[in-house]
């Protein structure tokens, strides 16, 4: 279970972020003292840090610089400062990503997932005997293979990377918009129907389970 430390001085955002991260299955912690933020972070040995830039005692930039002296943990800046110069500066300091407030939760969670999988370089995802080739956008099972369109691939990727959890349509749509595939719920349903047909053809019927009113489950 990945451990995520959230450095955020607003109590409301902190509470909600911890809730959302915990619901996603992460072990999330947040310091409530900001005297020695870098020390607090390092002592908790996290797998990922969500770092606000405007903190009470020091700027997030300084904190990151201090962390980098002894650890290579991925850091995502989460901030209401949106000047491009800030983003550029943050990334040159070695931040993994830069998310601007107000962000939407699915977007943030997708970035978190991406940052955590850094270096893992998963070229293929396998769930219940179905393998998704992320480089060639092909799905295979039982020795048979089907080619996927861009939309179908994204949908299947979103579901398989969250397997074991019901994914609401909104969340899939959000992730697709992030990848510049501007689908609405109707298009999503049509694509899922096609996807299921392809899965059936390669001998994996009912791979995607439709939970009425809640979402889809792999």
């Amino acid at each position, binding site marked *: 279970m990945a451990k995520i430390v959230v450095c955020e001085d607003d109590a*409301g*955002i902190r509470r909600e972020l911890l809730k959302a991260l915990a619901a996603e299955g992460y072990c999330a912690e947040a310091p409530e003292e900001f005297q020695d933020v870098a020390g607090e972070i390092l002592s908790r040995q996290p797998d990922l840090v969500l770092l606000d830039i405007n903190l009470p005692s020091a700027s997030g930039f300084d904190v990151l610089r201090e962390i980098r002296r002894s650890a290579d943990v991925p850091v995502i800046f989460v901030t209401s400062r949106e000047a*491009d110069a800030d983003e550029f500066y943050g990334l040159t300091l070695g931040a993994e990503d830069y998310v601007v407030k107000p962000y*939407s939760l699915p977007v943030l969670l997708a970035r978190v997932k991406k940052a955590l999988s850094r270096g893992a370089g998963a070229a293929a995802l396998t769930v219940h005997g179905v393998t998704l080739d992320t480089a060639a956008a092909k799905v295979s099972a039982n020795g048979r293979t089907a080619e996927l369109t861009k939309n179908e691939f994204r949908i299947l990727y979103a579901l398989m990377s969250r397997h074991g959890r019901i994914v609401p349509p909104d969340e899939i749509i959000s992730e697709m918009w*992030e990848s510049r595939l*501007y689908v609405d719920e109707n298009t999503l349903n049509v694509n899922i129907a096609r996807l299921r047909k392809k899965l059936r053809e390669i001998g994996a019927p009912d791979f995607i389970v439709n939970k009425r009113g809640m979402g889809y489950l792999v």
Partner: protein
Amino acid sequence: MSLMKYLSEKLAPLLTAAAGLAALCLFLAGIGVGFGENLLVGCGFAAAVLAYFTVDFIVKKLRVQGLSASLSASRDSCLWAETAEAPRSAEALAYYEAMKRCSREALARELAGRKREEEFTDYIEKWVHEVKTPVTALRLIAENAGGKIAGELLQETDKLFSLSEQALYYARSEAVEKDCFIAKTDLGTLVNEALLEQKTALLAAGVAVDAEELTGAVYTDRKWMRFVLSQILSNCVKYRRTPGACVRFYSEEREDGTVLCVWDNGAGIPAADLGRIFEKGFTGGDRSKRYATGMGLYLAKKLCGKLNVGLTARSEEGAYTELRLFFPRGAVHVLDGETAALTKS
């Protein structure tokens, strides 16, 4: 200063001189001076008076001309009084001093006003910055809670954020150059950021988006341009015609630059209104009953102007609206091309 004006001003001294001349001639005639001598003295007197007034007129006329020339040549006419030469005559000097006092007072007020404006802009910027924290918290609370009400809350939260952003960009729009970061920007990325900002509204309104084939890049400020596109998109949502509403993005490469088009099949704009859509506060005839501030396109046009991007609109009422953003090819492109040529050789 015309001659007539001068003469009417100098009527009293001229009449006095004429009366003096008549009295002198009568007096000379009375003491037995002959007509010829009398005429000579009279002409001499008149010539002296005429000469005085002629020279006086020319000198004054030149001075007035110089004055208006230096005023129109001065870079800041508010400060001109400070550099103007003091006049010699007592009356003019009194006026001069009075003018100086007035202009100093006006300058002081203008500076105070400018300071107030700057402080206000700073305050708005801080406020919008601060309001992002509760907006983010609201979003998170709604998203964690889930359900139908959460979706509605998210929509309202987005509206709230969008309005506060509008206030921010309005406050900043006078000093775009202070906060501008021009870089090569992929059109797909630019449009994607604006679409993500308006995602909730677009999906809720059932507006289909077609922007997947967009290619090309322009040199611009990402943040300002995202705001402009976001304003245009928010109009696409407001003036949509359902069902089948859609918005399409495409670009045209031209010799002198790149055009980014935002096309929608919404209500369109009546031909009579097309020239006025970029005016401040313009919401159109029957459009006014909808949720509109008349600021979106006004700000978009203003910011585009500052970023040297041409913003124009084409429309047919009841059919379509197309907003065209023209990014002219500038010196940066040339430089870029040269660098490419250099690396090749």
